[in-house]
């Protein structure tokens, strides 16, 4: 590692997956990084000067910036334990996608479990491999507060990372969550051999419905027309995106009642998001036809073909959604 840059916020990364190790590998070149992991890490992947910790208490102590690179399913557990040790001046950046029952967004989980307010979501077109290879990467950091962005900027200075800032953490997290559902739907469309134009229509519906629900929850409408919304919702070649796509195809091939498939579907964050978004939308009096269609497939109430046909027949009204939102007091 070259000489660490002056004044970098003291950074701890929590996680064991590819995002955590890639971040440790890349950021470890800029300054001293602590990686908190609960399992052994391949020494070839992590630079030797990355400090390893195995308890959250040790990881939290002295850290000014915490990056939680853990899946949503683990986020609350990690946050609850971290909450015993965090201080109010720390910054937390998470990379979780999805929602908890009740349509609870990741930043709300962190708010509920820690005293930290300066919370951000780091997302964008996932290109961990590109990042590791030093190729240019675009990513979005969304937070209501300036500190996470300044901290991330400090760490990423000089790297080929285009960091886009958004103040709309709700909008970005909703877009992230809906991405899984859109990928499921597109996977079903692939399984039905419906062609590429259908992919675009499904994406359009996903964008409209994400905007509709997101804005009802306090997001900014324009988030869904910018990089944060559009790029997040496009079915991605990230591992998570590919997982949803392939499950969607499997649903068409073997049906939701297949024993093996039905065992894994509930763990998919896109499935959880679908159920929760549909329920939350219904409670708010919102029409979310794509969510309803995918939910009907997942519950066995409809076949993929019938469900998608009902959505594809609908007109896209994104412009009207935006116009109505702009007229709100």
């Amino acid at each position: 590692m070259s000489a660490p840059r002056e004044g970098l916020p003291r950074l701890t990364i929590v996680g064991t997956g590819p995002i955590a190790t890639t971040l440790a590998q890349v950021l470890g070149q800029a300054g001293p990084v602590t990686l908190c992991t609960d399992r052994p890490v391949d020494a070839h992947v992590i630079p030797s000067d990355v400090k390893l910790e195995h308890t959250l208490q040790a990881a939290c102590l002295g850290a000014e910036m915490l990056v939680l690179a853990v899946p949503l399913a683990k986020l609350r557990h990690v946050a609850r334990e971290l909450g015993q040790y965090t201080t109010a001046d720390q910054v937390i950046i998470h990379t979780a996608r999805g929602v908890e029952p009740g349509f609870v967004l990741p930043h709300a989980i962190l708010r509920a479990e820690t005293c930290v307010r300066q919370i951000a979501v780091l997302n964008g077109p996932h290109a961990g491999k590109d990042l590791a290879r030093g190729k240019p990467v675009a990513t979005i950091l969304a937070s209501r507060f300036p500190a996470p962005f300044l901290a991330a900027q400090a760490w990423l200075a000089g790297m080929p990372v285009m960091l886009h800032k958004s103040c709309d953490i709700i909008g970005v997290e909703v877009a992230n969550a809906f991405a899984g559902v859109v990928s499921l739907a597109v996977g079903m469309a692939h399984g039905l051999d419906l062609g590429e134009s259908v992919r675009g229509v499904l994406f359009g519906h996903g964008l409209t419905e994400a905007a509709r629900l997101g804005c009802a929850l306090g997001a900014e409408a324009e988030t869904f027309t910018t990089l944060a919304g559009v790029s997040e919702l496009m079915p991605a070649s990230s591992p998570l995106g590919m997982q949803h796509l392939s499950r969607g195809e499997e649903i068409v091939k073997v049906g939701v009642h297949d024993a093996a498939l039905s065992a894994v579907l509930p763990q998919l964050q896109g499935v959880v998001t679908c159920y929760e978004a549909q329920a939350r939308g219904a409670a708010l009096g919102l029409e979310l036809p794509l969510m309803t269609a995918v939910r009907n497939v997942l519950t066995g109430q409809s076949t993929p073909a019938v469900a998608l046909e009902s959505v594809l027949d609908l007109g896209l009204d994104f412009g009207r959604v935006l116009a109505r939102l702009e007229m709100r007091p």
Partner: protein
Amino acid sequence: MRREDQHRILAGVESRVINAVFSECAQQQKPIEEVLADCVYQQRRRAKDGRRRHQRQSELFWDGVQRRLGRADDAEQRQLLSQVVGNYIAEVRGNFDPRVYKIARRALPPLVSALLTASSPKRLASRAELAPLEDSVIVQGETEHLRRLREVGTVILAPTHVSNLDSVILALAISQLNLPPFIYGAAQDLFNNPLLSFFLHNLGAYTVDRLNQDPVYKRVLKTYAMLTLEHGYDNLFFPGGVRSRSGAVEKRLKLGLVGTSIPAYIHNLQRHAVRPKLFVVPATLSYQLVLEAETLIDDFLQDVGKSRYIITDDEFSRPRRVFDFVSQLFGMDSKIYLTLSRGLDPFGNPVDEDGESLAPSGKIFDCSRHVMWRGVVQEVPERDREYTHDLGDSLRAAYSRDNVLQATHVSAYAIFSLMRASQPQADWLRLIRIGNTTESYALKDVYNATQRLLQALKALEQSGRLRLAPVLRTAAVEDVVSDGLRHFAIYHAQPAAKRRGDRIFPLDRALLFYYQNRLDGYVLPPAQVSVA
């Protein structure tokens, strides 16, 4: 306020505001002349919007500023700015005279008590025993917590705003709790009455001119409030800004003054003040009837009830109406509830008995670190704005939780929900304006709707989401409806609803809408209209 503090505060306001204006002008590369020209423009606009006290002197002052501005060089512009700021300070500043306070404290409670308990002047003169004030104004909730927080730091009381009577009720409640007076901003039109002006001015009130949109004026106001907090004076702000037009508990809050708690706290920390802590205590007011309800809901419905429209001539400005209102209301043994919520730190975190901030886990944490980076306390406007936003969320949650529902609210909601159920296609505005095909409702339908509503409300109270007036927990549904209808009959020009035989007739749909709005925001069952 101690005299030496007053001098320091006023001097502090002047220097901080002038420095802030200069700093802003330097950052934005804006000439001071432009700021002054904007001040003059805003005051000309202000003069058209309505009369204010000392109008003539004000006009002369601004004429002078405008005249001199045209030929002023840099040094003269700075001097003009200093005079403008000084003029605003003179307008805003309050005073506190302990002698006046003693008189008010002794005289006011029995006077108001007499009114509240419908005593006649003859009875008052004969010194007959008057019912104690505590019987009519119920101060409940976290009273001890408020007392304790005052010992630990400086408190901002942040009540909901229903009526212009709120100030009187709050003053009485503070006195009842044996707390020293709070400094508060009183609307300028209240100072138009010379007697009221004398008491307000000498009891710690400072003037808030809601029609004055000049940014320099607003900065003076906020800085004044901030400095009083830094000097340890408790303050009272209405985060709603104006009285609720719709009758609902405030959801849109104006956090400008309440938000001064964060910079005040930061300054306290930076100068290592002995008692740096500041607390915000939400308070929720509930009346069976509201003095100005007709005017307020009319304003709301005409869609004129925006913040730029300030009502100065309503029921409160007519003393006879006020007297009739309070004497009739409390002649019926009606109650006003002031519910104090658990105190918060300036960032919206709950605090314990000793004023220590609590994390969601219940663990105590050091809230000063919210405004630190690497151990240094810093003011960061973009960050602090978000903290104030969070404080607003906490205030809203407290108001909703500690909102006390009474018979008028419940009866109004039950009747209005029957109106909705009998015409499901019509939105609420149409229902109010035009009504519906059903002119009256069977008493049994109203009882059934009220019964279902009470069941839902009791469940919500059990889970801590709201409060019910004690009588609503135990009274028979017939008595609840009867109590609501009795109240509707006593004061407003037309009752909101009336019983004739075994049917209920909605007579003033706007008023029904106003009172039922107190339940806005809670998830409640829909009403069912009988087929017959």
